[in-house]
């Protein structure tokens, strides 16, 4: 490029007060390749832009430098202007002489000298700029939602309602997530099942939602708009096309197990349905416990099934699906039992976690809704709730707040009091965190109405003595040690990311934080986007949150998908890395430092070399340094451009 123009902006007094604009114009116009250097009071204004356009046309400029404010402010403005002037937008560079010069320096002489340097650097850079064109990629307008909990279902419904196909993948054999296990919900005490079942039913019958229960994502390739996923559909050993859910098989199955859904509190069968309202309303066989699958005998279910739906030969199936966007709604688990040994969790039957309490309180649960303790079925008269069991505990590596425990503990305590009015409730808490609509009021009502004892402090130990659970704790407000002889202890166990999220994150090339929660692209401005374009994030897989927030996030991700699908192609930033094929040694050091797995292998003249997938590349340039030969370079920030800036800076 030869014919460069320089435009220096006064920005009113903002720049001209400390920088001698005239000198900047004079000095820069002496540059051999600058054929025009001029100034204007407000370049970004309409007349300013008009002026630039006219000069470009008149002088036949091939590129220009705008010496004005930060590119963060107006780079887009002047690049768009360039395309209107029929110059490639990437042949426009900005010299930041306001934020990084006139506003931070006082001495006019110094500031002017620096401004001249900054403009010279930009001139040298723009001389090495090349026209860049964003690549566009076709787009597959079909979304995949991973996890059919309340967040995932909401996202799937919204997207499907908008007219796009959705693939809803769920690892359990039924949809609805953890909410199906809950009895009532805070702060309104709505019955969880009652508000959830309309949604599960809607998902099941929606013509544009393809439900894949009991399935897991094994592999994802591709990039935004063009993902290809491999999904494992796990064998249920029941042909769901035939099964009517008549449940004869369940009744007659001789093998009793304690299914996960009931948190080990209620007996189930080896062939079973998780709960009466399950969607899909189909039975499945538990592979680990089924007598026939393990010993080759039994097969009672197969004999009895009127539809002949039992198929012991069924195998896992791998299906390939093409999609354009992915929503990750993987949800949560509770902290491992072994980490809460001081509370005797896992050792004593009557020390339970919040989810177990939900099952006990549920009318379809182990005691049909009567609150009894698991060990002997007695109604507990003294019950201790321990909040922050594992949460906010640096020692256990979980310094974060699990967010929902304050609320559900209050809810559970209140429900207990409704059912056992003469029972005594003790709640150990660190702080009450009830930030949410109607939450604080709910807690206050609970404490005031129901005569619960809220104790601010932590519990050091729970152990059994004389058929009671002895709880040793501390009331930090009175400074007293407390000992309670309780019948049952309920732990508000810490929320952890659900099992397998780490592996899924690797598959999706997204990152997880130190606790295994999925990392959002920006904590404030991109809270539901992932680091990989086209992958969005909803629900507790991101961080602990309540149902309302999860639903809101589900809808929010759906709206992101709409805006992506509203176009017919995706445009990629052209500032991506590029490989010089002849100079690549094939050592693939670039591959190891790339955070986006954008480096692929390519056969070239009998050797394997690196190739940049420009749809995946985000343009960080780490690869350009890992590459010793300089065979890989970053468009828009090439070695030449940076070296040219450096050289200009060293001119005296």
């Amino acid at each position: 490029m030869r014919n460069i123009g320089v435009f220096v902006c006064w920005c009113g007094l903002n720049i001209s007060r400390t920088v001698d604009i005239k000198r900047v114009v004079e000095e820069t116009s002496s540059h051999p390749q600058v054929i025009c250097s001029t100034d204007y009071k407000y370049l970004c204004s309409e007349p300013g832009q008009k002026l630039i356009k006219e000069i470009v046309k008149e002088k036949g400029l091939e590129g220009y430098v705008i010496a004005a404010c930060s590119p963060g402010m107006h780079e887009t403005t002047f690049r768009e202007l360039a395309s209107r002037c029929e110059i490639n937008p990437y042949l426009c560079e900005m010299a930041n002489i306001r934020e990084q010069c006139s506003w931070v320096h006082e001495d006019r002489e110094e500031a002017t000298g620096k401004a001249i340097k900054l403009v010279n650097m930009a001139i040298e850079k723009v001389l090495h700029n090349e026209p860049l064109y964003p690549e566009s990629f076709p787009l597959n307008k079909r979304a995949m939602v991973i996890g059919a909990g309340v967040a995932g279902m909401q996202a799937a419904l919204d997207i499907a309602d908008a007219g796009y196909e959705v693939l809803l993948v769920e690892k359990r054999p039924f949809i609805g997530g953890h909410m199906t296990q809950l009895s009532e919900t805070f702060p309104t005490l709505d019955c969880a099942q009652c508000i959830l079942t309309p949604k599960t039913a809607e998902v099941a019958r929606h013509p544009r939602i393809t439900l894949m229960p009991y399935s897991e994502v094994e592999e994802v390739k591709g990039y935004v708009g063009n993902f290809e996923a491999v999904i494992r559909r796990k064998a249920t050993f029941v042909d769901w096309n035939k099964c009517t859910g008549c449940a004869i098989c369940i009744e007659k199955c001789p093998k009793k197990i304690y299914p996960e859904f009931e948190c080990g509190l209620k007996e189930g069968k080896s062939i079973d349905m998780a709960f009466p309202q399950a969607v899909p309303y189909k039975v499945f066989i538990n592979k680990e416990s089924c007598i026939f699958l393990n010993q080759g005998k039994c097969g009672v279910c197969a004999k009895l099934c009127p539809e002949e739906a039992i198929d012991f030969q069924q195998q896992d199936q791998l299906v390939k699906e093409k999609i354009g966007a992915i929503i990750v709604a993987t949800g949560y688990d509770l902290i491992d039992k072994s980490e809460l040994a001081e509370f005797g969790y896992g050792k004593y039957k009557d020390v339970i976690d919040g989810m177990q309490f939900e099952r006990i309180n549920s009318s379809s649960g182990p005691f049909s809704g009567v609150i009894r303790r698991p060990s002997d079925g007695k109604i507990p008269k003294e019950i201790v709730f321990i909040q922050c069991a594992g949460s906010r505990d640096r020692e256990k590596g979980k310094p974060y707040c699990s967010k929902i425990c304050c609320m559900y503990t209050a809810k559970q305590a209140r429900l207990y009091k409704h059912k056992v009015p003469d029972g005594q409730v003790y709640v150990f808490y660190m702080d009450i965190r009830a930030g949410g609509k109607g939450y604080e009021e709910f807690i206050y009502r609970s404490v005031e109405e129901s005569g619960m004892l809220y104790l601010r402090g932590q519990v050091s130990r729970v152990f059994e003595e004389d058929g009671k659970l002895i709880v040793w704790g501390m009331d930090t407000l009175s400074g007293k040690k407390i000992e309670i002889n309780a019948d049952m202890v309920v732990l508000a166990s810490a929320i952890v990311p659900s099992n397998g999220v780490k592996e899924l994150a690797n598959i999706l090339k997204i990152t997880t934080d130190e606790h295994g929660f999925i990392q959002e692209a920006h904590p404030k401005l991109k809270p539901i986007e992932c680091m990989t374009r086209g992958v969005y994030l909803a629900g507790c897989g991101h961080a602990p949150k309540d149902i309302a927030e999860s639903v809101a996030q589900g809808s929010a991700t759906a709206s992101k998908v709409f805006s992506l699908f509203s176009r017919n192609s995706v445009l990629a930033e052209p500032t991506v890395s590029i490989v010089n094929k002849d100079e690549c040694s094939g050592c693939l050091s670039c591959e190891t430092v790339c955070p986006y797995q954008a480096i692929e292998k390519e056969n070239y003249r009998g050797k394997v070399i690196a190739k940049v997938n420009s749809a995946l590349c985000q343009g960080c340039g780490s690869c350009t340094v890992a590459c010793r030969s300089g065979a890989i370079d970053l468009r828009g920030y090439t070695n030449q451009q940076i070296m040219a800036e450096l050289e200009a800076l060293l001119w005296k």
Partner: protein
Amino acid sequence: MKNQSYIELTAMLEQKINQLLSENKVDYLIVYGKGSFWFKTRPLLIRKQTEIEKVIWNRFCQFNLSTFLKPGSRKGEKIGIITKKCDIRSVVELIKNNQINKDNLYIIQVACDGIINWQKLENLLGATVSKVIEVEENALNFVIKMPETNIEVLKNDYLLDKCLICDYQQSFYADEFLITSEEKVEEIKNQFLPSLEILENMSYEERLEYWLKHFSRCMRCYACRNVCPVCYCPTCMFDSQEGLWISKESKTSENYVYHLTRAFHTATLCVECGECERVCPVNIPLMKLNNKLAKEVSEIFGYQAGLKVDEVSPFKTYCQEDSDEFK
């Protein structure tokens, strides 16, 4: 190890090579052959059994033959290579960096008791060096046999610096390990040449002066780069975009950037074989740069190049807990 051992090893080597060629296990072998002068050796490429007699193995086999794996490695031919216990590390680095496929490589590691620094010998003997009949050895000394007289010198004074601190053992990656008597297996330790300390203890200005004095002699023949077994780039960055990184003129400041970049680029890859320094026509002490970086890399990351094929180089990974010495 006595002279006898070297004779024995050469015989074993010949036998092994014969076997490999006759069984077509390799297409060719990279070995040591006799050089132009009695103590000099040269790399040799043999394809035929009839060439086997040219193979030698002695105290003067200094080259790191793995340099010759850089080209040719992509033709898919099966290559046999002789390595000393130190050189095999650069073979490992080439495998690690996808420059050669281990499946196409047959590595013969030959026992080595240190390589004689012939330059020191030359300095000692001067012109009479051409009259030497043979160098024999006893437990402590080399016995230089001359027509009239024998000169005995202390072994440690005439070995290569790197051999004095060498404690590498049989590599896991050698396909064949030729050895005469059982050698003691020691743990690999990190030792660094004491001569670094002199430099390290200088002031910045003294050190800069020291290096600039050396770099001012550099004529950028790039021999150090070309001989380096881990400088495997098909086109070096200093060649590809000429004038971009440094100007073509042989100025000290340009040489400085070249040498520092070279050192930085080989950090985590350099196996300290000493070839760069050996070939430097103007005797720039390049190994001091390499040794220093190897030492620092080892101290910071606990990493040494060329020990394991599956070990990840520190520049290809990171650790959130890396020390934050900058603030």
